[in-house]
């Protein structure tokens, strides 16, 4: 066996070894319906205290929908807005209210506001597991305006993250 073919085989084996754990990691990071429902219950608990009737969206890290809920007396824009807030939090890996402040006209990042689907309004919160964003919760229609929506979404994101952490602890 030539020296070169040995080296090629070693390289191929190394490549396989490198791919395998990556694939496993990508699989385990999918946001489950159970985690999304935990977020829903937490947002509803917040809304009950608040006396409001919000709409919410939960998306995974790819920006795809996992859960949508339109409040009983929601205005027509609420659900779509919740989706965009979640998109913003997931895309920029921060609360949409912080992203709003960061991208104010005149700021160096102001042109980030031109990102399609993103919206500079509070109410989107990333679901964080450690330093990793695994999705986001968007809320629209609480009583406290953008701060209230952010608080509701934070409760939801925390509940979803808690389930992920529990799952990780079990494994």
């Amino acid at each position: 066996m030539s020296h070169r073919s040995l080296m090629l085989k070693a390289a191929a084996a190394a490549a396989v070894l490198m791919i395998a754990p990556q694939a496993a990691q990508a699989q385990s990071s999918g946001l489950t319906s159970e985690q999304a429902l935990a977020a829903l219950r937490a947002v509803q608990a917040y809304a009950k205290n608040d006396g409001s009737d919000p709409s919410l969206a939960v998306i995974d890290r790819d920006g795809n929908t996992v859960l949508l809920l339109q409040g009983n007396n929601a205005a027509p824009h609420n659900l779509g807005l919740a989706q965009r807030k979640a998109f913003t939090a997931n895309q920029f890996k921060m609360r949409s209210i912080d992203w709003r402040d960061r991208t104010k006209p005149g700021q160096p990042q102001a042109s980030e506001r031109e990102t399609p689907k993103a919206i500079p309004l509070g109410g989107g919160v990333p679901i964080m597991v450690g330093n990793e964003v695994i999705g986001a919760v968007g809320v629209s229609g609480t009583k406290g305006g953008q701060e209230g929506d952010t608080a509701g979404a934070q409760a939801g994101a925390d509940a979803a993250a808690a389930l992920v952490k529990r799952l990780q602890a079990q494994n």
Partner: protein
Amino acid sequence: MQKLMAGLVVGVISIFAVSAGFALMQQMTRQFTLQSLSGNDISVEQALLVAQGAIDACKKDNSVITVAVVDHVGGVRFIVRGDGASPEMVDNARRKAYTARTFRQPTSTWMEHTAIDAVDEKGKPIDLNGQQMLENTIAQKGGIPIIWHNDAIGGVGVTGSKGGGEADEACAKAGADTIADQLF
């Protein structure tokens, strides 16, 4: 005496005239007053029950489904994606629910009714196939309307069950049935 009788008759007639005028005015007011409609709609709480019912029914063969519940105007009330489902399944379930809602019938029935070769009971072609070209509709089994007082106040759509479209629709039906006792 005669004067008294005449006075009485005039009095009675004038009472009638006044009350008739009043009634007429009332009628006109009713006719010209704008009234807003108050619609019946499926609530968040009901939508969650319907979705849970569908998920539970589909668990029998370990199917993991995506469920959508739409409201009385066909807008999303609730959607939850099944684990491992492809992203487009969310819209697929929503369109099944929308189709059932807007045509007030199970999507399987609607598909038969709007098939290109569909005929009525006399064998005459129905030719409603154009309905399948409407936006947001989908010619797939798995959508069930939620009926209240002969009108659809919502719809439920299921996708992803192991048994295919028919099983999807059975699960959707089981979901809708969970709130049947609330809709009377």
